[in-house]
């Protein structure tokens, strides 16, 4: 299946540019239908974390922010919304969700699985049916005349699958995101080994057209296994398999360079799996590791150092507060899941309760505070963070959980940064979203009162790409 590497994201920074792109059919994606244009007046504007216009106007045209400021002339023909007593924020970004994505462990047709097994476990597997102990497959007889079968791609090893292409949420799921003020999501598969590439999408209605904003934002690396007893069949095998796959991609890259330079020697194998991993193996594309427990973070640090990976992102990072050192060693950005782990599943809980002389239940322990304080602790330790609902349901509780993280020590400014600017950079869409600036997509949240994260302040309106919800 041919996949688009970069969805055409209209990221022009001027209104004129935007208009030009909107009028060029066939060159990039244009939202369908016509826009209603708006002017949000008399509103408190938080243009970016820490940057506030106490009373001003935001003009939205053709799905983009046309103007923002304390004294902006409202053009004729736009719908005026007087929002005195309200604040407008950049639409929030949930940096990682698997909602709307197919599972990397989805069932395949029975025949496909059998073929994959015979071929040594599908693409990305070691061949080696003929090697004793090297695989369980059956070797082809010598001189077999049949042409090779097309490669079978297992979803757990579909390294160039694009999450942004595969994003198919229900209307309810999209609405749930918007309810919490989330206008953009980072798309990260849930499971597999190399299940594909991270992308970004909008949370507007599907009827408005394509939601995908950005693909190939990163190569996801999870520590799952192959199915049916093929190698790697357990997590320890998966760790070795991931290292070998990265090494193979690095080797492919060496051959590729030599081949292009005309250096005598081997030529590239052109294995699609190795080639899909090349950008990450050589440090061009970020590596997004899924890891949460303290010891899993250490493993990410080890693999990162051993393989010389750059631009490392850790998704989950639920026990980051216990292993800041590993995140530093990997120079990782933490996409912190707000699905707080059950306290009794946190590494070392028993010991800590003992050490602290506590005998009560987990809920009233200091550990519950530590678990919620994860994001705050990481921010204080200087680890760049983005917040995510990864591992949980979409939307509705996202804001409540941010509030809990703030109550446990995350500063509101850091919380806003971790749901706007940082994830926008991480997903490669900071030219289009993350702040309220002219030229950017009109992704906006209007909340009653002065504080998006304060309890009791209802979200009044959400705009996604200029559409009002």
């Amino acid at each position, binding site marked *: 299946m041919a996949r688009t590497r970069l969805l055409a994201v209209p990221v022009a920074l001027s209104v004129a540019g935007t208009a030009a792109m909107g009028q060029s059919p066939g060159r990039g994606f244009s939202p369908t239908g016509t826009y209603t244009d708006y002017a949000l007046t008399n509103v408190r504007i938080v243009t970016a974390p820490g940057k506030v216009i106490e009373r001003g106007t935001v003009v939205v045209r053709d799905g983009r922010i046309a103007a923002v400021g304390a004294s902006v002339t409202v053009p004729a023909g736009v719908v005026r919304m007087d929002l005195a007593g309200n604040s407008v924020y950049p639409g929030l970004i949930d940096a990682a969700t698997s909602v709307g994505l197919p599972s990397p462990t989805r069932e395949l047709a029975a025949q496909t699985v059998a073929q994959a097994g015979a071929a040594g476990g599908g693409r990305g597997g070691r061949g080696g049916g003929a090697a*004793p102990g090297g*695989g369980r497959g059956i070797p082809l007889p010598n001189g077999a005349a049949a042409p090779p079968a097309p490669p079978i791609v297992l979803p757990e090893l579909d390294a160039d699958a694009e999450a942004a292409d595969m994003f198919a949420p229900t209307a309810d799921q999209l609405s749930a995101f918007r309810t919490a003020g989330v206008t953009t999501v980072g798309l990260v598969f849930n499971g597999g080994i190399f299940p594909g590439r991270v992308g970004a999408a909008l949370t507007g209605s599907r009827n408005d057209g394509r939601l995908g904003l950005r693909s190939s934002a990163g190569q996801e690396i999870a520590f799952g296994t192959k199915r049916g007893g093929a190698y790697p069949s357990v997590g320890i095998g998966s760790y070795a398999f991931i290292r070998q796959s990265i*090494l193979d991609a690095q080797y492919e890259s060496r051959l590729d360079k030599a081949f292009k330079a005309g250096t005598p020697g081997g030529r590239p194998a052109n294995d699609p799996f190795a080639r899909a991993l090349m950008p990450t193996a050589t440090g061009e594309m970020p590596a997004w590791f899924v890891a949460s427990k303290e010891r899993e973070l250490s493993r990410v640090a080890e693999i990162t150092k051993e393989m010389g990976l750059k631009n490392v992102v850790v998704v989950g990072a639920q026990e980051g507060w216990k292993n800041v050192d590993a995140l530093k060693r990997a120079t990782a950005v933490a996409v912190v899941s707000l699905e707080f782990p059950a306290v009794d599943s946190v590494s070392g809980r028993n010991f800590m309760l003992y050490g602290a002389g506590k005998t009560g239940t987990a809920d009233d322990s200091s550990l519950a505070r530590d678990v919620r304080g994860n994001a705050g602790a990481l921010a204080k330790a200087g680890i760049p963070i983005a917040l995510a609902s990864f591992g949980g349901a979409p939307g509705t509780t996202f804001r409540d959980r941010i509030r809990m993280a703030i109550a446990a020590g995350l500063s509101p400014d850091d919380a806003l940064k971790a749901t706007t600017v940082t994830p926008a950079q991480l997903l490669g869409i900071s030219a289009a979203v993350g702040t309220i600036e002219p030229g950017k997509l009109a992704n906006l949240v209007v909340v009653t009162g002065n504080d998006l994260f304060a309890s009791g302040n209802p979200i009044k309106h959400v705009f996604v790409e200029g559409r009002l919800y």
Partner: protein
Amino acid sequence: MRIRITDQSTRAALATALFSLAIGTPPLAAQDVAIRNATIITITNGDIQNGTIVVRNGKISAVGQNVSIPVGIRVIDGTGTFVMPGIIDAHSHAALENGINEGAESVTPEVQVQLKNDDPVIYRALAGGVTAANLLHGSANTIGGQARVIKMRWGMPADSMYFKGAYRIVKFALGENVTRASSTTPADEKRFPATRMGVDFTLHYWFEKAKEYDKEWQDYRAGVKTNPNLIMPRRDLRLEALTEILHGDLKVHAHSYRQDEILMLIRAADDLGFKISTFQHVLEGYKVADEIRQHGASASTFADMWAYKVEAWDAIPYNMALMTERGVLVSVNSDSDERIRRLYQEAGVGVRYGNMPVNEALKMITLNPAKQLGVDKMVGSLEVGKDGDIAVFSAHPFSPNTMVDYTIVDGKVLFDRSQSTTLRKLVTTANPGGAP
């Protein structure tokens, strides 16, 4: 007799210190401790009656009868107790996660086991006086994965529990487990090798491949000096690990039972040019002790596992004593989350069956496994300069009435029977099926 902490404030300080460790802050000065008026079993320098042992900054600073205790450090009154080196288990699968075996293929030395540092079994092992263990890959494969040698630093992050300086160890296996003799799944039956002769062939096949691979890299390293355009070869983690075995950098611990398979592996190793470092289980080792010694291998066995499977039919409890008599370095191991708590009883079997001298029997759970894991310069006996890894028993470790009162790792008291009730309750709650 019960032992009391002499200084009440120590308890509070200890709790604080342990809590700090658990949440990853640097340890407080809790690595100093002294035990006085105890019977000290040094293993290397006899037993000391009414002796004192002092640990400072995690290392043993003094052992003897006339030892002065520095002011201000925690002192345990050891009257009536027996103090011995922390017990070392040369074969365990405790506290591992994400699989014990990568059994999809029969040759997987590129794999390494992964430590589950908060597994309560670590605390239970401490309750049995164990301070270090060799956490091995399982025995499903001809050449399995790499081990982790750990110290039982309960409460510390996984990274901090690895025993620095220990051998890098890889698991080999022979016999019924590798050939899937007791398997009931069709997938297992398909896997090569299915017989002992297939195991022999598998070893030869892969080590010959590894030699080719080694040569390819040697040629590259030599050639690139004069031709910088040479393309660096593919790194293959599996073959790379096999070359490390050939070069002696990765030590082989081979799961084995029968004398014929032991001799087969010795012959294969001699043919292919590598060494077996330790035969694990080695239940018929008493039949081929001379051959094991001549190869330069040691043995780590069970106290008594007669006939628990067909290939264990000739297992006898005299195995430890007989191999020791023939000059083989012998340890006794647990291979079990249950037996890891009472390795001292397992070692005692050697005294009853085979009349091993008491100190020789104790070596099988201290100095000898330390040698097998490459850590005997640091642990395994109570000597000045070695690590402060100590078990304090309420009676002689071979007494049927004995219990571990304290287990100390790097000078930190990580098990204290008088304070264990709270944790024991929690550990039981977390694992309702497990024994406290």
